[in-house]
């Protein structure tokens, strides 16, 4: 999911920063409008960002290998508009501390992970349309779907960007094959992310529904 430095042309990097800048500006505007005192949201957003940052370093088994989580779907579900600054900060820290995803690719990666997180938030919001008796299984199913979709959309965007801008020409068939390979490689990750997100959502519904924007018990 994280595109490293040096692969995409500088024009794509610049476009990524422009896109990320616009989304960040929009999200900060929405945050300022939604919260009477945006400062009050800073500790919560920061602590949850730190949780996501650490949790994304956890390896989960996808036999025969293991992958580390991205958690973009879960971030969208829990943080809403705060997911954008959180993802930006998380990616920056990953670039600074581990060289995980490149510095020049910060904007591109923020779009690839951040926009699907907002999409996941909207998908998960569909649970409000469900009848009360389906609330629990419906939330779990939508959490799975939201998070799977976030990975799929992000991976598709990453694959398209890489394959279409790689320097030197591949023929069309090879391009399509490479895109599909990259996408297929992300299916197990999407499933695991979906399962983890659904399980966390079920956990939060029982323990602290306030984190899902639902009234506390």
């Amino acid at each position, binding site marked *: 999911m994280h595109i*490293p*430095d*040096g*692969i995409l*042309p*500088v024009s794509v990097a610049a476009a990524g920063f422009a896109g990320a800048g616009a989304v960040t500006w929009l999200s*900060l505007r929405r*945050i300022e409008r939604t919260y009477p*005192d945006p*400062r*009050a949201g*800073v*500790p*919560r*957003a*920061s*602590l*949850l*960002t*730190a*949780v996501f*940052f*650490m*949790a994304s370093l*956890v390896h989960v*088994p996808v*036999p025969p290998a*293991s992958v580390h989580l991205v958690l973009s779907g*879960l971030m969208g579900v*829990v943080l809403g508009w705060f997911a954008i600054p*959180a993802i930006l*900060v998380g990616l920056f*820290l990953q*670039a*600074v*501390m*581990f*060289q*995980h*995803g*490149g*510095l*020049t690719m910060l904007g591109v990666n923020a779009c690839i992970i951040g926009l699907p997180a907002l999409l996941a938030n909207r998908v998960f919001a569909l649970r409000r349309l469900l009848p009360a008796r389906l609330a629990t299984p419906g939330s779990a199913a939508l959490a799975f779907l939201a998070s799977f979709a976030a990975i799929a959309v992000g991976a598709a965007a990453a694959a398209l960007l890489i394959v279409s801008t*790689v*320097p*030197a*020409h*591949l023929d069309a068939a*090879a391009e399509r094959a*490479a895109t599909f390979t990259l996408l297929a490689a992300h299916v197990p990750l999407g499933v*695991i992310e979906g*399962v*983890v997100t659904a*399980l*966390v959502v079920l*956990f*939060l519904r029982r*323990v*602290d529904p306030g*984190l899902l924007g639902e009234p506390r018990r």
Partner: protein
Amino acid sequence: MIARANPEAVRESSLTRWETRAKLIGLLCLVFAFASVRDTRLLAPMVLLSLAVFGLSALPARHLLSRLKVPGVFLVALAVVLPLFSGETVLAEAGPVALRLEGTLAFLSVAARFFSIVTLATVLFGTTPMPTLVRAMRSLGLPALLGDILLFTYRYIFQLAEDLHRARVAARLRGARFGSIRSVSTTAHIIGSLLVRSNWQAERVLAAMLLRGYGSARSLEVRRAPVARDVAALALCLALAAVFVLSPALIG
């Protein structure tokens, strides 16, 4: 792992003494100039320049190597794909496998850019403590909300690294096996627990911060104003960046 990636304890060098805002702008301009390099004649000067900057930083070589490792995997994949499948001019052939010139050049170009950018980024972050960096970014126009989230997240990462580690150790001592598929639910429970605890902790943290006047006029001033040497180093970086961007057009 987290503690060692922390760039707080670095050896004094000309790069640690460089004023942070000038360093940030100068090195970032070089990084983006490198990202734009397409002319293969510029690859060697680019790599040499990065190595020279790294030498000035007095950072240990293994620090750089460890940071090249993670994204390096991606590069290895390209090393297989590009030289073998891209281009028409065949350099060498062994049965159905052919090494192609265009692909090989494309790969070398990606690898050189990758190496140079990662090296400069390593120097920038390795010689600047995070709080100083964020303060410099704030004074260059980073929105306050983003700066605050960045600093606090950085602060709590270390606590959460320990919490997460202890939670996993405690679960393992009660028989959880993290290699197995069943452990996914344990992992989800741990993430959920950390989210819940952090959400409640955030309320206490906010209360403690407000009691100490958080939000009342606070200056995040940069401690040191740039001097002539800082500006000269910045100018040098900008000039070098311009050379890398413009020279292909000039020399044709």
